[in-house]
């Protein structure tokens, strides 16, 4: 009798590439390019595995990060993938939350999308420096808790944190708005000169604030009535 499966002679070995395969392949390529940019940043900035949080260091790291991501075609989803790769992948030699945050901030600030949503609830580490220099017309929403120095130097963007932050949140922010659903740590808003920081939970302590407004549970806590903001 004729083999009724004749047409499928080669079916097992002749895999068809479906559009999803192509998408996944291109995603993988994008992620590996982003990872390479991050590794370059680490090579420049953390040769001795120590990274000191100084404003000049952050500025330098940011400019290196900007160069690293130049020419990469990526989307907000790729940024999220990168965050998870930082946490889980063995491709990353070491995760230092400072440079990682600067690098992610650079990615967000140069992304095509105006609104970026990062689901970071499952990350085991809290990344510092997220939202650094977030420019006007950008909205960054992070689901999960973040680390220190979040939203520093915010430059007109809107940064929503669906979780809690640590110390120095909004430090040196110039304009824009940071909304934190839960709590913040010490030195919140240290050196901020403008913009709004709205916190749904509690703030452990404020830093030396120059300007702008800080709300805690719908109450304006800076500037207080009768207390003038710092002026240099």
């Amino acid at each position, binding site marked *: 009798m004729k083999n009724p499966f004749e047409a*499928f002679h080669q*079916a097992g070995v002749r895999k068809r590439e479906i559009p999803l395969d192509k998408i996944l392949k291109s995603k993988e390529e994008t992620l590996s390019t982003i990872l390479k940019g991050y590794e370059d940043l680490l090579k420049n900035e953390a040769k001795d595995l120590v990274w000191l949080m100084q404003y000049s260091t952050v500025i330098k790291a940011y400019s290196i990060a900007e160069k690293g991501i130049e020419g990469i075609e990526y989307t907000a989803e790729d940024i999220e993938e990168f965050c998870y790769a930082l946490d889980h992948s063995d491709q990353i030699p070491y995760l230092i939350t400072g440079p990682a945050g600067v690098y992610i901030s650079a990615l967000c600030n140069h992304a095509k999308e105006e609104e970026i949503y990062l689901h970071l609830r499952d990350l085991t580490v809290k990344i510092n420096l997220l939202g650094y220099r977030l420019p006007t017309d950008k909205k960054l929403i992070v689901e999960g808790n973040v680390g220190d120095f979040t939203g520093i130097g915010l430059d007109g963007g809107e940064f929503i944190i669906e979780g809690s932050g640590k110390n120095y949140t909004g430090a040196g922010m110039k304009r824009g708005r940071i909304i934190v659903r839960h709590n913040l740590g010490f030195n919140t808003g240290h050196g901020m000169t403008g913009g709004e920081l709205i916190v749904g939970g509690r703030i452990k302590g404020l830093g030396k604030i120059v300007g702008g407004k800080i709300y805690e549970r719908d109450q304006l806590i800076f500037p207080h009535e009768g207390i003038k903001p710092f002026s240099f």
Partner: protein
Amino acid sequence: MKNGYYQTKIRGIYKYISDNLYLNRPDVEIKGEHFNSTLLFSLLTGINRGKELIIGEPGLGKTTSAEYVGSILYRYPLGVIWGSEVSGHPEQTEEKIIGRPHLGELNKGKERVVWSNFAQIPVKIVDEINRLPETKQSMILNGVDRGNWEYLNEILINDEYSLFATANYQDRGTNTIIAPLIDRFDVLIESRHPGSNIAYIIGKEASSNHPLRHPQYEKELHQILRGDKPYEEKMTLAEGVCNLFGDYLKEHLGLEGLNKDERNNVNEEMVEIDFDLDTNAFVRMALAELSFCHKYGQKRSVEVCEEGCHYTGYLCHHIKNCASNRLPISIRNYAQALAWFLEDDGVDIEHVRLIIPHVLAHRIQWKDSYLSKKEGEGRNDPFQIYLAKEATEEIFQRYNEQREYLLDALSVGYRAFAGEEVTPLEGDHPIYEEIKKDIGVKDEKPL
């Protein structure tokens, strides 16, 4: 759209009928093109020599759509088509449908059959087939199926024919179409109401002379069909008149039908069109669901499977009867015809997804419990076609979920059938059981 020689002619026919004779909305979309399903399927029936059952309310163009397609495609003047139609009614007889004794010859003691026009010409239309009593439906079984018409001791075999039958919805004057007859139809299609706006303009430009009529050629064709010559000779003569009518259509209406050689060429082109691997596997999956029974080995209309079967979620659990071997033939013929019409290189899943509901709708006998469950659902199609469309999409969804694995399973099936020592793949679908049966892994249940 490409510009194949024959396809351009067929598209011209479609356009002329849809613009002038059968005004209706496009209701199907394939590969970005919109068509009216009744017209599209009637044309496909005409070019692939199929059998189509057209249902619908009275006066919605069931018969006329078939008449127009048959007349232009086969180049028979409308008067001949009308004169060859069979009407379904309780008093219908074999003598009116197939043929009668030649009374003059009979008086001389000789038996000779005068064949009806219906039995002779390649465009066969049975109007209101479900008004034929069930006992009389059996008379046309063979003719419908094979084009063999028998009367007394004579037989007339049509070498090509297309059959269009119309049926009204059930009322006091209708009968059930018997299962063997209904299975012989390739497709079921509904001639729908065109909508109030199109309905309003129908008949506005009615003229006394129908553009598809030609009294002179009609007379000549009637004379040929009535004549004493052998059938083959009559058909050759008729083809000559049809050619003249074809020239007339081309000159006056810009329409080009197909002569017999062209129709044969089209058929040869169509059968050359292959199914791609995906479509092949998808159709097998559909056939498995329509014929498999875990408990009784295969579906049988006299054996009803019970609740609690592992395959409760599959179509086999919702239907009573088994898919006949005519089903895959209908799928193949119509899918090839559609791919040919659209000038695609092969038959793909889009083609069969459009075809399958129409080849299934009249063939599936659903369980009453399933019908009760589904009858209240909102829909645009007649219940039978709606259920078949839903079923097709269900199978398609299952196919998408299991595609890679199924192709592997079929490939393993090939190797096992060829004698290689391989373990067949297990899977959660009747098709995997069928593969195992084919390669002899699963023994038939002991009696």
